[in-house]
């Protein structure tokens, strides 16, 4: 292809990857269900090279898919047909740290955890911590507005980014700042999934390490009691730094990998982390332990090592479940917290109906569910069943007032579900917003926002407010 020749001519050879054999490992990201080989992959080493890629892609009318570490779970970095993948993993320098102002300026390919490691000496850290934080990049975090286990208290990526530099489709450098007067362009860029611009630099907010961090694990014999405890914790005026729930299936899987000491016979488990100054943590701990009186096991982490081991089980839970099944499909719906027990019960029913196992590992404090649907792609019809089950779960989330994605993004995976959450008019606005930034439609086109045509064909256009699916569930 001409574009590949032009890229090879304009850029150093070692950063342009082309040909079937070499581009194949880039054909998918963390969601390997969907695959598409790009024409070429460019691993840019500086901003000028990115500009060159944009320029050449515009000349050849070739879509650009920006990629960080390729850990996304919604196919946001899935290459498009005849596209060029722009990899930013080589841009991995931490450019500046200002311990006084509590900020760090980093290139987009810097790994999430590398920021925290670099600023640890100043007793600071970068708060958002997606499970893939050891590998995922900050550019990808901004593109997906990544969450993590600690965003109940410390917010999502959008709350922890102070400014970004981005390149427009015309190769113009634009700085967007949190304190900009007028509309929130920076907020808009968070979670825009590579459709609006290419992020070239991120200034993040750093958070002081709390004086004390206290993790408590509680196992419950009953899922409903566990779910209700989640609401009771918030009701009691506590905002834990993290509040995670796992069901029995997930507990077993995580325990097999980490040997963290999770109670295998518990039906559900909570990991609740308190942080702050010594006194407030102690007060909240007393309150929390009282709320955990309904638990069958309670374990208060006594050492930092114990705390990390307990967290490791949770953070490795997804891939650990992968040991139990050839394939799994990870959902990411959010619901108002007080529906937790009802929704989990419904998911159990769906699981029985479709005869597919579902493991639940999720951010209970945010009402952000991660049902993992286990299936075997080599069994005929299993993929379709898994997708149907997933759709049911996401519809349920929307129906109780939640969302089809809390932190993984829409990517390619949830395009159909978007039709359920938004009206044609709303989707029209989204498409126009893309046009406002990218009139050429070359930045990751087709991701994140479904075409109206697709939704119409799907026939599952947004359910209007006057219809109430699942009338058995109590509402506001």
């Amino acid at each position, binding site marked *: 292809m001409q574009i590949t020749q032009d890229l090879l001519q304009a850029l150093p050879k070692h950063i342009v990857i082309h*040909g079937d*054999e*070499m581009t194949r490992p880039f054909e998918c990201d963390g969601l*390997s269900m969907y695959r598409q080989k790009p024409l070429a992959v460019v691993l840019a080493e500086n901003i000028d090279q990115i500009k060159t890629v944009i320029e050449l892609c515009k000349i050849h009318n070739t879509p650009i898919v920006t990629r960080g570490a390729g850990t996304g779970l919604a196919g946001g970095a899935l290459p498009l047909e005849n596209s060029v993948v722009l990899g930013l993993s080589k841009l991995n320098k931490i450019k500046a740290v200002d311990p006084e102002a509590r900020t760090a300026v980093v290139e987009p*390919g810097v*790994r999430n955890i590398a920021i925290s490691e670099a600023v640890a000496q100043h007793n600071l850290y970068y708060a958002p911590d997606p499970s893939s934080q050891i590998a*995922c990049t900050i550019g990808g975090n901004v593109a997906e507005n990544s969450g993590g286990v600690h965003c109940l208290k410390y917010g999502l990526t959008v709350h922890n980014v102070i400014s970004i530099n981005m390149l427009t489709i015309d190769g113009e450098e634009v700085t967007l700042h949190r304190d900009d007067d007028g509309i929130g362009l920076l907020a808009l860029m968070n979670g825009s999934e590579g459709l609006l611009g290419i992020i070239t630099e991120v200034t993040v907010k750093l958070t002081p390490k709390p004086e004390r961090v206290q993790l408590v694990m509680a196992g419950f014999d009953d899922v409903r009691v566990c779910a209700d405890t989640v609401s009771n914790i918030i009701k009691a005026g506590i905002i834990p730094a993290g509040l995670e729930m796992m069901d029995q299936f997930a507990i077993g899987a995580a325990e097999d*990998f980490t040997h963290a000491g999770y109670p295998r016979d518990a039906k559900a488990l909570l990991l609740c982390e308190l942080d702050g100054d010594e006194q407030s943590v102690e007060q909240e701990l007393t309150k929390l332990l009282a709320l955990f009186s309904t638990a069958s096991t309670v374990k208060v982490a006594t050492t930092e090592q114990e705390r990390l081991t307990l967290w490791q089980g949770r953070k490795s839970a997804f891939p*650990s479940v992968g040991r139990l099944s*050839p394939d799994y499909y990870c959902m990411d719906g959010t619901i108002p917290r007080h529906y937790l027990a009802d929704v989990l019960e419904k998911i159990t029913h769906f699981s029985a109906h479709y005869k597919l196992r579902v493991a639940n590992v999720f951010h209970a404090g945010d009402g952000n569910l991660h049902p993992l649907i286990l299936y075997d792609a080599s069994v005929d019809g299993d993929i379709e069943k898994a997708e149907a089950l997933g759709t049911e779960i996401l519809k349920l989330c929307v129906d109780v007032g939640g969302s089809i994605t809390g932190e993984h993004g829409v990517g390619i995976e949830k395009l159909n579900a978007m039709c359920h959450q938004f009206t044609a008019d709303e989707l029209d606005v989204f498409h126009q917003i893309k046009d406002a930034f990218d009139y050429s439609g070359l930045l990751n086109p087709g991701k994140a926002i479904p075409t109206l045509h697709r939704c119409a064909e799907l026939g599952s256009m947004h359910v209007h407010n006057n219809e109430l699916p699942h009338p058995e569930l109590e509402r506001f």
Partner: protein
Amino acid sequence: MQTKLPKALANTAHGKKAADILSSCVHCGFCLATCPTYQLTGNELDSPRGRIYLIKSALEDNQFSPSSIKHLDRCLTCRSCETTCPSGVKYSELVGIGRELIENKRPIWQKVARYGLRQFLSKPALVNLTKPFTQHSAIQSPVIERLATKGRVLLLTGCVQPTLTPNTNHTTKNVLTTLGYQVEQTSQQSCCGALDHHTSASTTALIKIKDNLDKWLALIESGLEMIISTASGCGVMVKDYPTLFETDDAYYQKAITISKHTKDIAEFLVEQDLSSLPKKKVKIAYHAPCTLQHGQKLPNLVEGLLTKLGYELTPITDSHLCCGSAGTYSIFEPSTSKQLRDNKVENLTQSQPELIVTSNIGCQLHISKGTGIPVKHWIELLDCSAALMEV
């Protein structure tokens, strides 16, 4: 990850194993973070996930050109990715399969170079000739002799260790003798097979390995308590013998028995009463070899042992990363190897240690080329006879 191997391959033992390993990978990408080569290049193709994909493609479509070989050769087989992988992907076994696959496709000059190196290193007579130029350190204390009060153990002396760092085996013998063990030694000829295995000469490796298995099994049957390795590279090879045989092979069970009877010297000592051993006040930096922490899955073992013995260990940044030695890697991939060594030396010397110690001869020799600080096997710290002489 969904994998579709061609029928002919899918039905072979190799194919089944590969398909199993590939399906356990969920493509999460966690392994990118701890892969030393990905950290240097930022290229998916130089990451475990990328290499798994290259091997997958090769198995599915038989598409494998020198470009793929380049990226596979760049893998250190440090197995850091295995430690990080939450899905339990047996990466090194898959890479083993991949390496066999590429061997036929290698350019002829590469084949010759590899053959030559293999022949040289595994022939003690040849290696010994180089002693005047290559010896790293000499024996530094007298031999201890004492009547055995405990069992018999077999010390794996290694093929190059007796020539280049003889003091390691010597001290180990002294320590074990002091503790009351009767120490037997393998001959310098009986290599563990790692060298051949890692340069893709699996047939040669298997002949040596079968020979070892028969000899050592006879010793165990006659009451040998344990096989002890002082080079974690050899240790991991012996412990992994079972992965080299099909389960219905007669040697599979033998390999399991030998694997169970093999311990790294630290693993063996940690269960012993070490109060009779000397303690010296030196500030040391310990380099954990990949073959020990990732391969044998024994992280923090030596660190714990040395701390217990009273040594002050300096904290090491990125202690999970490879030093770049990685068997014959330093010979075939010199530039990556050197870059990794420079990074490693910087991290090891950050807190100005008086001494750097490690658990594997490969790392020891490689690191010492990059620093003026002496690099030893940690067991040399416990030289009882030296301590006796001091008193």
